[in-house]
């Protein structure tokens, strides 16, 4: 779920770090213990494995731009993703991963195939069972400190994936739920540092879901508020590549430049 929210944020390109400082150096739980507790607090492994897809709608508020976008996110096991952000007077920004091809349609810049770090980020975001695969996804996991994040006591966990990319995640000392994360995020404009707070957790069909995500980057703030979340109601046809992307893929296969 958190990766899905993260994916929606990636449709815009911004960020800022609001780092939480370490306050103590006491005995800390292992990252595995923290993750296990988080999975349990989220509804448990059985509930997570018991769902095959999720569809969420909501709004993305971007006060610095004076804009609020309607957002739809569809994601299915094992790694399908479609995000649609409908910006007033602009049109729909779409991005997706069908298990092979990562793509984006932006009314301002045109359609494009994603590659490199941007594709890697999207694939990680599309991983439906990522919350159950921390050990596989992050060869290095370390509980750095018991600190404070978003005004709450939190365990700060450092994660490094197989590409060497580092992410910091914060888990509530009290509830075990994830309070947020920070790290670099790649867009077509480059890499920016994003700090994200997760809040307003609600129970939905046996899962505990953060309904609000507030991201800060480059001195600006974006807030995504989910209005509906449903599980196991996504038709896999939504992940079919749009005509524009099919044309780009065909061009790439025939030897033209890929994007």
């Amino acid at each position, binding site marked *: 779920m958190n990766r899905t929210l993260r994916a929606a944020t990636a449709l815009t*390109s911004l*960020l*800022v*770090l609001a780092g939480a400082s370490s306050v103590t150096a006491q005995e800390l739980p292992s990252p595995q213990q923290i993750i296990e507790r988080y999975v349990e607090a989220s509804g448990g492994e059985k509930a997570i494995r018991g769902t095959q897809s999720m569809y969420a709608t909501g709004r993305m508020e*971007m*006060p*610095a*731009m*004076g*804009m609020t976008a309607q957002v739809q996110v569809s994601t299915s096991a094992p790694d399908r993703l479609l995000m649609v952000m409908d910006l*007033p*007077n*602009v*049109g729909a920004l779409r991005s997706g991963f069908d298990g092979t091809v990562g793509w984006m349609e*932006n*009314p*301002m*810049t*045109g*359609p*494009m195939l994603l590659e490199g770090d941007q594709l890697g980020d999207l694939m990680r975001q599309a991983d439906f069972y990522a919350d159950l695969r921390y050990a596989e996804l992050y060869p290095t996991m370390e509980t750095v400190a018991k600190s404070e994040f978003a005004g709450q006591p939190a365990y700060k966990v450092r994660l490094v994936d197989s590409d060497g990319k580092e992410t910091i995640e914060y888990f509530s000392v009290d509830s075990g739920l994830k309070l947020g994360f920070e790290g670099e995020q790649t867009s*077509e*404009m*480059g890499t*920016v*540092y994003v700090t994200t707070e997760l809040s307003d957790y609600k129970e939905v069909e046996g899962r505990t879901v953060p309904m609000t995500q507030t991201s800060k*980057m*480059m*001195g*600006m703030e974006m807030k995504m508020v989910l209005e509906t979340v449903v599980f196991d109601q996504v038709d896999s046809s939504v992940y079919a590549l*749009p*005509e*524009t992307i*099919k*044309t*780009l893929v065909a*061009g790439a296969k025939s030897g*033209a*430049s890929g*994007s």
Partner: protein
Amino acid sequence: MCSRRPWVALLALAASLASASDDAPSAERARLNLETFDTAWRLVDERFWDPEFGGVDWDAVREELRPEAERSSSDRELREVIGRMVARLGQSHFGVIAGSPDDGNDSGSVDAGDGQPTCADGLPEHLLAALETSTPTGASAGPGLDVAWAEGTTLVARLDPEGPAMRAGIGLGWELLRVDGQPLADVARCLGAGLGPRTLASLQHALVAAMLGGLPGTALELELRDARGEPRSIRLEREDPSDSQIAHFGNLPPLRVRFSQRNLVVQGPPADGLRIGVLRFDVWMIPIANLFEDAMVELQDAGGIVLDLRGNPGGIAGLAPGIAGFFMDEKLSLGTLRYRNDELRLNANPRRVTRTGQRLTPYEGPLAILVDQFTASTSEIFAAAMQDHGRARVFGEPTAAAALPAVIERLPNGDLLMHALADFERPGGGRVEGAGVTPDQLVPVTRDGLLRGVDEPLQAAVDWVILESVRKDAEAAAVEEAAAAPGGEIR
């Protein structure tokens, strides 16, 4: 991210010409003044890309101006104080835009006694109001003419076909003297003190645009000097241009967007029948994306393209990578945005497909770009990038030198603060802000040329496109000849 025409940043300078009121504000007014002032200060404090503020003691600026802000008796006065605050940074793309047409506490225009407004004691209030409340390209109707500054005069440089001005018999090269009784020479004189030539030109341009714009059907009195030097007084009604539409984007006020495409066909040697597309748009707003794509599909086999960015103040910088991609076969950088802690690149997105899925090839033919002193912001970023990559040849006059990525945010009193978030470095190195884009071929507008009906910068660009086309044809022929020759080898 968006950017906007440089006149917004000049409002502080213009506003400083207005006189302040001595009336003490109410307690509620004073509280709102401080909240608004502090918010504006904080936004810049947190987000200005240079943590050293270019050597300006930003805390001291706050301490100095905060009491003045508190004493302001109107939003207009408060805008003036905040405008002076952000002007200390010495950058474009900082300014305060009125959130509403008038807050009711401002004095009227100064009358010189002969019934004509003057700016002897400061810029007339009605012009300040026009500047603050009208939109850059005027989400409003107009007389169907554009002006240029040449040889110290304001000249009619473009006429809309069948527009009000053309129907009234106004010709290219005529000198515009007064608009609704306001002498343009007075405007220039009053603004002139302490302003550099580029700043003055930008503000003049904004003022004249504001004076010419208005609601459809409203009357406009123009006094001009015609081709023979005779004074002419012409009354006409403003109309919405037929090629325009109103665009909305976030906090920006509604903007009138105009896009036009002309196809020129060369008659006679050395390039008889060569088709040259001339594309012009007046602001970088969302509708341009599809209009430009449609034009590029139609121009795939054109012998050359001229992109006219004269008078284009910029707009949404995020459109530049998409437009550049119609002319670039690689994801080349259009420049780097340097924020306080981050760095982003604008990269061209090579356009290999239309929005409907039709296959497309980035255009490889000659591209000329026209610029002038009112070409600013995203237009400058685009022109600089295409110039640095050798993808276009730039014609015209040096640009406005005002190119910073900025946002517009609402302040507690309803006004809007425009503030730049990042510095911009062109792909070949160096800033556009403060330096502008120097054309590869300097071609100023002249009155003589306009009176002859010749758009000299456009003519120069077309001449170059023809030569480039001929040169490329010759090169292609030589390659074919070498390949066809016995034992020929292509290197």
